[in-house]
């Protein structure tokens, strides 16, 4: 592989990895605050993409309001999901919650499949299709939007969690839910906010990604899974590690396909994330078991 090609694959890896990072941030947020693994996280990304297509292309709204509305709508779905499914299942076992979120995921997916059909849709790109040259590689402007947005989101999220009251309350809830409730932080409100934010994060991922990689009703499955893998690299606790995990996964996938290494044809690309997942789970099994036992 030449240096140019390497850079090309690297760029595409970072682009894809940024999406994974956004999904991973959502997973981490919800898990930290509510201890729930939200299997529907990938669906928020899907919704972001699909809605932005409908609003921008079909309805014909100007770009900015279309994007904002799409993200808000995704956040609204997140809120609905929390209120109808998670809140009402208070006290359910871990396995029950897993099944409930899976149910929510495929419910959302099914509705999306009905509303938008099975064919992929492509919302308009933010700033055209003229590829820019960068270190010997061509980079689509949308990719820059993706990477840039992820960067901005990560920074803003960090600032929000560290410096605002709500953000600090969320962090407190994540660290010690009992103590937090004793000082007046309502865990249910926190859960609601966590879900809304995670859904918004997913939605943002969807709206920036769809113009480049298209959106289909079932794109949420693999995205959710890969975001999960990325989040698990950070132990589901660290925002930064989640972003790092997402980028790392994206790069590894891209390079593996580019290097055309043994069985790593593009068909097996998805398997990479799965193998990474299993490796992480198995290697960390002991520590993870301790966490589950104490939580």
């Amino acid at each position, binding site marked *: 592989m030449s240096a140019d090609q390497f850079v090309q694959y690297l760029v595409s890896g970072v682009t894809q990895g940024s999406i994974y990072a956004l999904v991973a941030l959502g997973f981490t947020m919800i898990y930290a605050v509510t201890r729930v*693994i939200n299997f529907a996280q990938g669906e928020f990304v899907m919704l972001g993409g699909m809605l932005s297509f409908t609003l921008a292309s079909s309805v014909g709204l100007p770009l900015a309001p279309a994007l904002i509305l799409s993200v808000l709508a995704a956040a609204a779905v997140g809120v609905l999901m929390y209120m109808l*499914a998670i809140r*009402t*299942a208070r006290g*359910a*076992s*871990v*396995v*029950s919650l*897993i*099944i*409930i979120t*899976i*149910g*929510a*995921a*495929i*419910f*959302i*997916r*099914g*509705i*999306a*499949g*009905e509303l938008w059909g*099975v064919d992929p849709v492509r919302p308009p790109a933010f700033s055209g299709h003229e590829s820019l040259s960068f270190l010997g590689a061509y980079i689509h402007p949308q990719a820059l939007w993706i990477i840039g947005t992820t960067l901005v989101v990560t920074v803003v999220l960090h600032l929000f969690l560290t410096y605002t009251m709500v953000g600090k309350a969320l962090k407190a809830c994540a660290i010690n839910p009992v103590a937090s409730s004793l000082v007046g932080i309502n865990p249910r409100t926190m859960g609601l906010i966590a879900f809304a934010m995670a859904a918004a994060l997913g939605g943002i991922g969807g709206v920036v990604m769809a113009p480049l990689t298209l959106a289909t*009703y079932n794109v949420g*499955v693999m995205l959710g*899974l890969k975001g*999960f893998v990325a989040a*698990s690299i950070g132990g589901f606790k660290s925002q930064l590690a989640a972003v790092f995990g997402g980028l790392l996964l994206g790069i590894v996938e891209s390079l593996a396909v580019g290097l055309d290494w043994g069985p790593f044809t593009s*068909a*097996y690309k*998805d*398997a990479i994330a*799965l*193998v990474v*997942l*299993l490796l992480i*789970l*198995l290697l960390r*099994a*002991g520590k*993870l*078991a301790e966490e*589950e*036992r104490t939580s």
Partner: protein
Amino acid sequence: MLAKLKSKWYYSAFAVLLLLLVLLPFNWFLGHYTSLMIFIGISTMVTVGLCLLMGYTGQVSLGQAAFYGMGAYISAILSKSHGFNPWLAMLIAAAATGAFAYIIGYLIFRLRGNYLAMATLGLGLILYILFRQLGQFTGGPDGMAGIPYLSIGGLIFDTPFKRYFLVWFFCLAVLFISQNIVRSRTGRALRAVHGSEAAAESIGINVAQFKVKILVLSAVYASLAGSLFVHHLRFVSPQPFDFLASVVLVTMAVVGGLASIWGAIFGAATVRILSDELLLGFGEWDIAIYGLILMVVMIFMPEGLFVKIKEIFERWRLRYRRKGAET
């Protein structure tokens, strides 16, 4: 005394069910549904394994379709591409799937809850990708056709009518065995693992071994079901073994009641009838409905729809008997 009366009731219910099952394909009207009933029987076999694993032992598997697929593909490949006797192929498939489950079990059961769920999901998906990609063996995404029928001596299972009895023979055997296990010291050990692993270990139960054993059993059930599946359709493709298939299996188990062996028939039947008969032509609605069922059942009746119906029925019976005593 109450236990004896109850068991008499159950025996007669079982006898009626058996009678209906036997007569179904002969009936002019219900006979149309013979093929559906074959699929219900096959699905029940896999679902029972899930009930044992999830409901009784408290574990989770989001990749059970992988075992189903392994049984299907090994049977298909051995009997079609290598000319093995289909029964031998089925046996080898079950043994191989069981051995695979054995190895996997010791690795993943150190995980619990969410992480275990993800591990099973990941494994299931990896196997699906292998089914799809290893084209030289599996026929790739388009699958393989021309799988021979099962036969015993001169009797070839070449009509749905004959295969109906074959499948339900296996299905009832699986149900019978599972019910026996549940009502035994083994069943109590499994439930103990679910109830409290620490306490189970303290009274002498080898928790890790029991988890693996039940995974192996559920894998063997699924493999047998997969083999019967391909000898029914004479065709195999990766599509029935993807993540959604695993989710559908969990839906069946959940609807039937995770901790109910006989509920598995109810769960499998409900979901199959919904998907094959009622939701045809509704596009992607069936996925949405699965999702809805999963959510509603798990939130409002986590013990299962079947078990809930039984409870309501029991309450009616008591109220009716009390009324009868009053008058």
